[in-house]
């Protein structure tokens, strides 16, 4: 089935994520990171933006067929407990490849998180492989 490349460039709605100290603590506990900075919820671990779940238009994938290919986070400043981060996610690219496990579709999603002053906090980029 040919992939629908018309979804490239579509964005999510801007979603506001309140960074709760308790959510930081639980995330660090799940990782097994004992740092007191995280236990207090002062600063969020580097991969914390993965908790900001943002629905994208035109993308409805069966989780059982998803492989996570790669991920990148680039920070302008750390995320801190009490931040309100506005996240916009965008479909940066969609393409098809034939791989050793057969036909695969690659989705590249990019996100930007900004703070209440409108300053960029981080950018992220995900590669999702759909079998």
């Amino acid at each position: 089935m040919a992939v629908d490349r018309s979804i490239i460039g579509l964005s999510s709605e801007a979603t506001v994520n309140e960074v709760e100290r308790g959510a930081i603590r639980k995330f660090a506990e799940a990782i097994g990171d004992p740092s007191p900075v995280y236990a207090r919820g002062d600063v969020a671990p580097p991969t914390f933006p993965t908790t900001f779940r943002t629905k994208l238009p035109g993308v409805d994938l069966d989780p059982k067929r998803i492989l996570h290919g790669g991920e990148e986070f680039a920070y302008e400043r750390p995320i801190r407990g009490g931040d309100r981060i506005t996240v916009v996610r965008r479909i940066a690219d969609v393409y098809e490849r034939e791989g050793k496990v057969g036909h695969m579709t690659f989705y590249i999603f990019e996100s930007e998180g900004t703070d209440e002053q409108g300053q960029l906090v981080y950018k992220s980029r995900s590669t999702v492989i759909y079998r």
Partner: protein
Amino acid sequence: MFYNELKPGDAVPALVKEPIQKVQLIKYAGASGDYNLIHTDVETARSVGLPDVIAHGMLSMAFLGQFLSELAGAEGVKRLKVKFAAMVHLQDVITCKGTVKQVTPADGNRAVVTLDVWAENQKGEQVTAGEAEVYLPGH
């Protein structure tokens, strides 16, 4: 750790994690909001041909995040980029490692240290690998 003490090719201190347990995957699913059942439900895992549940790729990336924040402090991590190369199974022991690629002096007596980083299992296979940048102070 100070940037003046590092040069390209140097290894930085490794981080050895506890063996992967099912309860950790359940905690991580809840904490991250990734409820893909292949990480927590054995029936779902088997239905896609896996012998048992597998860890979230993002969990091994989070281990690398811990490794970097132990190196540079929680506020010292500038960038982390990885590819997920292999699956992480229950009981796997993941070790995070890194070597210095480049040291670039920045403003305010600190430098951006670029590292090759990876997480490997007990067989020495890289499961998650990529590149990172951290800020380290000088002395």
